[in-house]
């Protein structure tokens, strides 16, 4: 166990440290301790750069796994911090006071996954999906085809072919007949 791993485990109860590469590791935290752990990593451990934040819909476990990727430029090391939140009640502490661009990632996660970050600036404003009325589109159970069929009208005059039958007829007409 390295110093960082043991410090995170001791201070914030972190688990499942994994060294993916010499310059990249990942770790899991409780969601309630993630904000403070990120602040500690930034202020005390030199992980001052937030590369990005995103979410993974682990629908099988009924959780969203939030992912914060930080970089310590002096040590040339990146750390991926994960935490799970309940998929049925997706709420997470905002980190917009830790990094100036974090509110944009949180606004995106609100729009794409339906995860709320109370207090995050403009979190309820549309980001890329202007006028979107459907469920959050990055959720695994979002059926894009069903949504498209229900929302958009088919343009008249279009013909749909079965790809296999059509190509067979185009390329090998003698066999197709």
């Amino acid at each position, binding site marked *: 166990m390295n110093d960082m791993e043991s410090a995170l485990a001791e201070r914030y109860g972190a688990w499942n440290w994994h060294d993916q590469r010499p310059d990249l590791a990942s770790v899991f935290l409780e969601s309630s*301790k993630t904000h403070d752990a990120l602040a500690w990593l930034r202020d005390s451990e030199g992980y001052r*750069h937030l590369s*990005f934040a995103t979410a993974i819909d682990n629908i099988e476990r009924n959780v969203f796994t939030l992912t914060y*990727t930080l970089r310590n430029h002096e040590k*040339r090391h990146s750390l991926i911090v994960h935490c799970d939140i309940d998929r049925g009640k997706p709420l997470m502490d905002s980190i917009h006071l830790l990094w100036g661009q974090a509110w944009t990632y949180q606004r995106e996660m609100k729009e794409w996954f339906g995860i709320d970050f109370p207090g995050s600036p403009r979190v309820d404003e549309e980001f890329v999906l202007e006028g979107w009325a459907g469920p959050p589109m990055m959720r695994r159970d979002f059926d894009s085809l069903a949504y498209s069929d229900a929302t958009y009208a088919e343009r008249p005059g279009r013909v749909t072919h079965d790809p296999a039958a059509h190509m067979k007829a185009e390329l090998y007409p003698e066999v197709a007949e």
Partner: protein
Amino acid sequence: MKREKAHIIPPAERAHPDLSTGKYLVMWQGPQHPGITGNMSLRLIADGDTVVDCETHVGYLHRGFEKLMERRLWMQNFPLVCRIAVPEPDFNEYCYATALEELAGIRIPEKAVWLRTFSLELMRLASFLMWIGGQAGAFGHGTIAQWSVTMRDYVLDLFEELTGGRIYHMYIIPGGVRGDIPQGFFQHVLDVLKTVEKNLDDIELVMFHNAIFKLRAEGLGYIPPEWIDQYGITGPNARAAGVQRDLRKDLGYLAYPRLDFKMITGTKSDAYERAKLRLLEMYQSISLLRQIIDMMPKDGIFRGKLPNPLYWKIPAGETYVAAECTRGEYGFYVVSDGSDKPRRVAVRGPSYTHAVSVMERLARGTNIADIAGLMVSLHTYPPEIER
């Protein structure tokens, strides 16, 4: 849980002007506007000719790449990833291919290492040539845009010769690259580099010694060094503030550790400094390309053996692969659940912070005529924000 005391960054104060007074003018710059970078728009509120509030609006180019990638086989995503940053597709291919190789435990041949480095540096040069035309055009130097776009076309000719494609190459694939070096190709490259270098000398003379450009760009869009970490600023925007960060040096990927180059930094951190720094990085790319041609093994295989792409399952795991593109840190976060499709792919483009948080803050207090110049000086591409 009781919060520990952390150093907080107060959100940038917004003006919230009372529009009913009739004192302010609301206007949209973009999505179709010569002073905007790609398909995005800025909602500006001006008091006289001074911008008091700015909001970045994106989404005009959203095609749901990250969602689409979850439903396609690993290899089927290559025609998608290159479209995430249109003028600079190769970095997407590199990051995605390298992430797959890392998760699948695939090593690439030595020649592919060099060909990938070559492809990325040539792409850097092409992208900067496009950018400098936009930067000059935003300040009224349309002639320079015509020169640089012509030079970029010569570079695109080289890509066509190497890969078959001018804009989207799909050249970097898992296991190596898609094709070998065509006969006589490197001589064509050296000829083009000579022409571009000569043209850059002209651009340097005409643009960077021009009184109007200096007057308007100096002091415009000053980024304080303390913002670099606060806002996740990377690339030339960070280096112009004196911050020594370049992933080609920091991560030492591909053949970069074997190439002779120094990190270029500035001090003044304004639009002029950023432009000057990018010009120097264009000369540096030319130097790197010449070194690569000298040092690259001319024989050997360019691609290793891959599993059948139709049945390729990648072991469960996650990784984040980043590279230094023209705008800064470009990265792909890839998660596999052990199946034949990605569980999650998230793209980290530098424009995400530069065009939204940083632009919105820098625009306030700027003269409305300089907004286009400021926007281009941050060098942003909207598709990598929207994915």
